[in-house]
């Protein structure tokens, strides 16, 4: 009960879903997440970029699946916990394949630090801030920014095809 009471004190804090790509930890705002699931059967779609894994069927709904590890050029580490985080991008939902989903974080506002100066640039715009927990570092991502325009186009095309 005391934990529940303590969490009540954190009610104003923004929650993040923390996951792993390779050895690194990343997090996205929990409200952007639609649902999470284990890695289902993915149907491969020809003539798509390498990080575009294919499409999946989630309770009758066709969802495009992106391999974030390939997208971010991270070497995948299979812990048997590979999962798909389904996020809403505009009117579409896309699945992001990660090595593992770790936990739900609710850092205090002051615990979040801006990304370092050296990371400034187009390629690292999707990292919104850095969260340091003890010896760990979690990069907070903006999914919309992380996906390029062509990705969105492809997603929309796939979505319209699915519709």
């Amino acid at each position, binding site marked *: 009960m005391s934990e529940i009471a303590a969490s009540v004190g954190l009610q104003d804090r923004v929650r993040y879903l923390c996951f792993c790509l390779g050895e690194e930890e990343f997090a996205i705002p*929990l409200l952007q*997440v639609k649902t999470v699931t284990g890695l289902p059967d993915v149907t491969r779609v020809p003539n798509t970029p390498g990080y575009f894994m294919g499409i999946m069927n989630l309770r009758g709904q066709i969802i495009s699946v992106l391999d974030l590890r390939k997208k971010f050029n991270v070497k995948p580490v299979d812990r048997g916990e590979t999962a798909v985080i389904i996020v809403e991008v505009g009117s579409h939902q896309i699945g992001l394949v990660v090595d593992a989903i770790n936990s739900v974080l609710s850092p205090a506002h002051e615990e979040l630090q801006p990304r370092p100066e050296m990371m400034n640039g187009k390629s690292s715009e999707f990292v919104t801030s850095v969260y340091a927990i003890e010896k760990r570092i979690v990069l907070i991502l903006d999914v919309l920014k992380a996906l390029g325009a062509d990705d969105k186009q492809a997603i929309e095309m796939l979505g319209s095809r699915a519709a």
Partner: protein
Amino acid sequence: MKLSLRVRLTAGLLAVALVASATSVLIGRASVLGHFSALALVASLVGLFAIFVGVSFAFATAFERSAKRAFQRLQVQFELETDQLTNVSQFNSELHEQNAIQSAAATETSAAVHELQETVQKNNETAKQARVSSEASRLAAENGQQSVVNMTAAFTQLSDTARKLVDGLNGSSANLDELVALIGQIGEKTKAIDEIVFQTRILSFNASVEAARAGEHGRGFAVVAEEVGSLAQMSGRAAAEISSILRLGVEKAKAVSEAARSSADRLVAETKSSSDIGLNRSEECKTALTGILQSVEQVNQAIDTVSRSTEEQTIGIGEIAKAIMQIESANMKTAHVVGEIESGLQKMKSADRERVVIVQDLRELLLGNSKPQSPSTVPPVKVASTPVAKPVIVPMPKSKPNPKTSSKSAALISIPKMERAPVNKPKKVVGMDYPDASDSRFEEV
């Protein structure tokens, strides 16, 4: 050359007889014519006497000549006998020497045979010792063979033991494998737990998402969802720990099993190779010992042969010793006989000398002292040309051979000769003395 006195006397006597005969014949015729018969008778008697004396004289002369010849032959015979005696004496002395040599050789042979006997005896003893040694070798070799048999049995037992040990190790290895399989099953179960944990966490994240969407109303639920998530995570960690522990156990069990198996294999291989080497060595030992036994048997046979030979040698040497003893006794007898012969010869020599003297005496008795006063009185002797000493015969001073006077004179005259002869040639064998040319005994021919 002058005629001898006797011949002249004989011739004279014959002339007188012839004259007397003629006278008697003439007187006989005259008596027939006249009466001179008495005168004729005297003349006839004178003629007859003259004839008788002449015939007697002639007969005596003929007898003397015959006797001389006989004495000459006798002398020659004596000389031959003397030569023979000398030869026999020489042969006898040679026989004596040979006998001495033979005797010495027999003694040496006897000594050698004695040494040989000792050597053979030593050989016999050596053969006996060799037999004892050989017997010891045989016993040792047989013991060795028994040891080899025991060793072979031990190696076989060792092999069996190693096999049993390996069977045991393989059995425990199989048990370990079962254990590993069991742990594997547990691992499978932990995988199921992991899956459940994963699904639970996914659910808890979805619950968190739903709670976040619920806003104010979902706050309490969000906490619950996170708690569930963290519990699931703890379960996951525990399952992972169990899994890693199981993995460790499996690895250890597998390592132990593998080690047991490999060490069993190694043990088997090593034991087998050691055992095989040992068995090979045993076989070699067995072969070597069999060879030794065969050799010992051969040595024994050789020793037996040597022993038999030694016995035969002993018998042979004994016979040789006996033969040598017989030879020695024969030698002694021979030496004795030689001595006897020698003394016999000495006796014969002295007898010979005596005989010469007797013959000389007889000659002097018959022919008188034939010492040549005038060469014409001595008849020619055939053997006189050779320088052989012959008894000197001094001719009698009388023209007529009177047995009495001649024997007397010969005895009288020959005495100094008899005494002189042993002084001149006491050591010489009769007939061996070659006198000088100036020797007075030489006859002038």
